[in-house]
């Protein structure tokens, strides 16, 4: 009789909420462990519990969720800790645009502005060229393309994102740089004569074509699918009534797009652009292969340079001194913070301002 009373009833029969709440089932599990029992019924009870209860399941779910949640913080923490030496040695001078740009592993003196500038200028040029293209693609895909053309074109745009970035780099070195970037660089070189603005175009472009301009043009191709796909989704999320109302008022299709759809989706498209900016800054391999990886080059886009990602890719495996490693990790930290902020902003714009509203 006593054994009858002490028997633990199956947890999912105790209350309606027990199955739905991890904490309550966990509590009940610990209750179970507290009870004095003989070893054979121990095993029975555990077997019974794991067969019917969700303890193991919810433990696993919580653990995986914990992994996902902790990972980003852990990455940030590691970058922060590992870059401590460089942070203490150089302070804010490390990323200050007007500090003296030195990058000297022999003397352990580092300053990251040239790399940051390289990232910003290549990403900016890439955006200026990619945004009109991408928005045009998005408009075509969501508004104009006939049904039979839509799926293949969507595929093609997404394939552009699926090509591994080293393949872009290889193609860039041997095909794109000599065929496109070198002639274009030569054509742009006369702009270097202009006072003021000329610093951006001071040539000559190297015969190999390795230059910030080359990196920017490869980036255009690489961020195009990101911006186009997100903008397309934003446009497609706009209610049909908006289009119908504009057309009913006598607007042409272009006017519908230009005066109704784009303003309606502007924050989402801005989000897409920011997302593309984040991609461009974080892109590593293709850029490393075509940018030439050299310090200096001033502000000119026709000269080789570094980006934050490419300097890490290029030097980290060979960094010997602790300070060199720490400086590169600090660049990684800057990169992390920048892309994190950009992505968070883009996500907020796309999710909260557009898709939820529509």
């Amino acid at each position: 009789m006593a054994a009858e009373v002490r028997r633990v009833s199956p947890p999912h029969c105790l209350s309606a909420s027990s199955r739905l709440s991890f904490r309550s089932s966990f509590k009940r599990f610990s209750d179970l462990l507290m009870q004095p029992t003989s070893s054979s019924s121990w095993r029975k009870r555990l077997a019974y519990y794991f067969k019917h209860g969700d303890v193991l399941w919810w433990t696993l779910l919580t653990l995986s969720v914990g992994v996902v949640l902790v990972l980003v913080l852990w990455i940030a923490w590691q970058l922060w800790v590992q870059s401590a030496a460089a942070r203490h040695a150089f302070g804010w001078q490390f990323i200050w645009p007007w500090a003296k740009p030195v990058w000297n592993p022999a003397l352990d003196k580092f300053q990251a502005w040239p790399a940051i500038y390289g990232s910003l200028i290549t990403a900016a040029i890439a955006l200026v060229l990619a945004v009109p293209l991408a928005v045009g693609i998005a408009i075509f895909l969501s508004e104009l393309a006939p049904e039979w053309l839509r799926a293949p074109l969507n595929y093609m745009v997404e394939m552009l994102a699926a090509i591994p970035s080293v393949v872009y780099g290889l193609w860039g070195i041997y095909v794109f740089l000599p065929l496109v970037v070198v002639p274009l660089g030569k054509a742009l070189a006369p702009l270097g004569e202009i006072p003021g603005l000329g610093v951006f175009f001071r040539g000559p472009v190297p015969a190999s074509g390795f230059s910030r301009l080359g990196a920017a043009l490869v980036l255009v191709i690489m961020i195009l699918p990101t911006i186009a796909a997100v903008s397309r989704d934003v446009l497609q999320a706009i209610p049909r009534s908006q289009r119908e109302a504009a057309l009913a008022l006598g607007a042409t299709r272009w006017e519908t797009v230009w005066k109704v759809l784009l303003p309606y989706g502007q924050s989402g498209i801005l989000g897409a652009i920011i997302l593309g900016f984040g991609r461009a800054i974080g892109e590593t391999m293709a850029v490393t292969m075509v940018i030439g990886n050299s310090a200096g080059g001033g502000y000119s886009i026709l000269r080789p340079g570094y980006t934050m990602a490419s300097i890490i890719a290029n030097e980290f495996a060979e960094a010997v001194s602790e300070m060199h490693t720490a400086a590169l990790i600090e660049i990684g930290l800057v990169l992390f913070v920048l892309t994190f902020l950009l992505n968070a902003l883009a996500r907020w714009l796309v999710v909260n301002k557009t898709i939820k509203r529509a």
Partner: protein
Amino acid sequence: MAPESIYAHVNLRRNYRRRKILNTVMLSLTGVTVALAVLPLVWITVYVLLKGGRYLNLALFIHLPAPMGTPGGGVLHAIEGSLVMVLLASLLAIPVALLAAFYLLARPNTAVAQAVRFSTDMLAGIPSIVVGLFGYAVIVVTQKHYSAFAGGVVLAIIMLPVVLRSAEEMLKLVPPEMREGALALGAPEWRAALRVVLPAAMEGIVTGVMLGIARAVGETAPLLFTALGNDHYEIGQIVRQGLHYHQSMGQILGQIFGQPADALPLTLWKYAQQPYQERVQLAWAVAFVLMLFALGLNIAARAWLAYRRRKLYG
């Protein structure tokens, strides 16, 4: 208020013509932008496939690389390294991603779920080179050597958000009545999830996993200073040696994962920049293989998904 011009209708007609022309021009321009996007895709694909195809041969898949400056040789080391690391990455990332997706399904609107979605998106946005730095700091520094294991872990971090996002989407497509019905019949949560929801969403999840693998196979940056590269990585050799010295299974596995390893994109990167013509040719052949693999996996996954969607929703 100014009186309206009696010639308003003339202006209107002129305006109308102008608006129509603008309409035609701008809409055609959007078509041009699509052509401009398709152009590089076709250019790269055709060029790589033609040029890489020329250097493709059987030796590529069964031989280690020849010494620098000598013709012949293959990239067996990179194929095996890629295989080992992607396998490890899949083993680590897929269960975590699926379980987290089940959590999101069971508690869709809680603060934790929102945080997980945010975290996933941020994880997807972290540049892969930074993930590599993380792998270096956490694994390479503590183990004091580069290894295939470290490479597999960073690839898992790259894969995780891809698989998690698509798995969540796919689980959401399963009608909630199925899960609720199972629960109402008294099935515990895990049984409802694994026996009812998972089979229903299986095909979509597999496509998500394929996309994740395609992504992981093409990644180079995070491997640069975790797997590092190893021209002599050959599993057959490791196993033969291990058997010869009567090593246990665990020791042999430890050697496979503990050594620095190479991967296809890593090899491509290194060979593309070497001054030897043979190495550059190998790089093109590797680009061919990678391209075929990445594009093939992507096309297959998306085509399958589209086909299923059409079947499910008409």
